């Protein structure tokens, strides 16, 4: 039988562990491909023409501005697939963003199953 002190110690450890987990702060996107039309990827903002795709590498940052040390799973979703689509690439860090039609929509950033952020994706008219 565990004593009250042992119980207290376990609870304290658990709370301490939670406090030490990194807390999501922001996502940083960098371009990994060279589309035929101008595409802007700056930090957490994306602008691209309809019909154009860009590959981005996503880096999570914690509140301490350090790299996100957790091995959490990152997923990106389009809040409006009539404006843009986002596809995963093999591996965990790269995604393909495809402009569908002119407009602005949110790219939902989901870390470990939790919605953490919204990246503005602006889609402009198709490039000729």
């Amino acid at each position: 039988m565990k004593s009250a002190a042992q119980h207290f110690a376990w609870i304290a450890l658990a709370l301490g562990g939670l406090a030490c987990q990194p807390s999501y702060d922001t996502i940083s996107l960098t371009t990994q491909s060279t589309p035929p039309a101008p595409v802007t990827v700056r930090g957490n903002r994306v602008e691209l023409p309809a019909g154009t795709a860009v590959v981005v590498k996503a880096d999570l940052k914690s509140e301490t501005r350090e790299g996100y040390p957790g091995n959490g799973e990152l997923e990106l979703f389009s809040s409006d697939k009539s404006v843009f689509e986002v596809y995963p690439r093999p591996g965990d860090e790269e995604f393909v963003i495809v402009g569908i039609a002119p407009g602005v929509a949110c790219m939902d950033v989901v870390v470990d199953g939790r919605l953490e952020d919204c990246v503005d994706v602006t889609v402009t008219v198709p490039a000729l």
Partner: protein
Amino acid sequence: MRLTLALITALTALAAPGCVIDEDADDRPSRPGELGAGDFLYVCVGDSDPLCAQGSVAETFPERIAVGGRFALDFNPNDTIFSDGVALRIEAPNETLVKAELGSFSIEEAGYQVFLAVSSESEVVDLQHILAANIERISVRTMDSQDLDTIELALGESITVSAVPQDRLRSTLAGSLDYAWSITDPEIADVATVDEDFDVTIEAVSEGVTTLIVEAGGFAQEVTVEVSVDGPATTDTDPGTDTDPDPDPDTDSGSDTDGNTDTDGNTDTDGGTDTDGETDTDAATDTDTDDGSTGA
């Protein structure tokens, strides 16, 4: 027996490297994927794709595709990245502007459209942007690729022509299109369809001028059709009957450039003797060969 088997085995092993027939050899034109995971291959759909004029395999990977032109893509993954038998499919994310039907695509608006090579796990392994352009001109060509602005025919003559869509820079646009051919005055020239509306034969019916119209991808191109008794101006366009009775051939080689009515010997300035007795009224260069001169 053993020796024979060993000999056969050895000979087979020696012969094999030079005799391998690569059944997967693919002569379809390709372009490396933008992510370096393999090559995208262009596949013609139907016979009316100008890139496949010489057969079912395209000559090159197209720079531009006509808006509304049908085509297909395939993907050859790099052996070094993917194991054999990897299942990949080509997807066009923009379902509004790219129509996918029975394995072929058509782009409905000018501009770039991306095509994705997607794995069974729905991961994008590679991609390719394809540029679609509006048709700004349809080149009407003879079968030996001579571009025609005007079709000149003699009575009873016929010519087979084909249509090649072009952009404003006169670059050929790929993709299969449905062509509609018509003639404004079928009593002068008629159009006989051959080869799935892609090539047509124009037949001269009676003397006169009419217009051939070819329509594709929302664009209509007009070509003048001139039917004359004697055919194109490169031959004798003299409307009169030339019955030169002169037994002596006229051997002058000068050109008649006066443009005036030639009344046989009065205003003929070509330096030769025109003695045929016929009224010559055309102002163009006369290449009558019966008198040897080029006078009008």
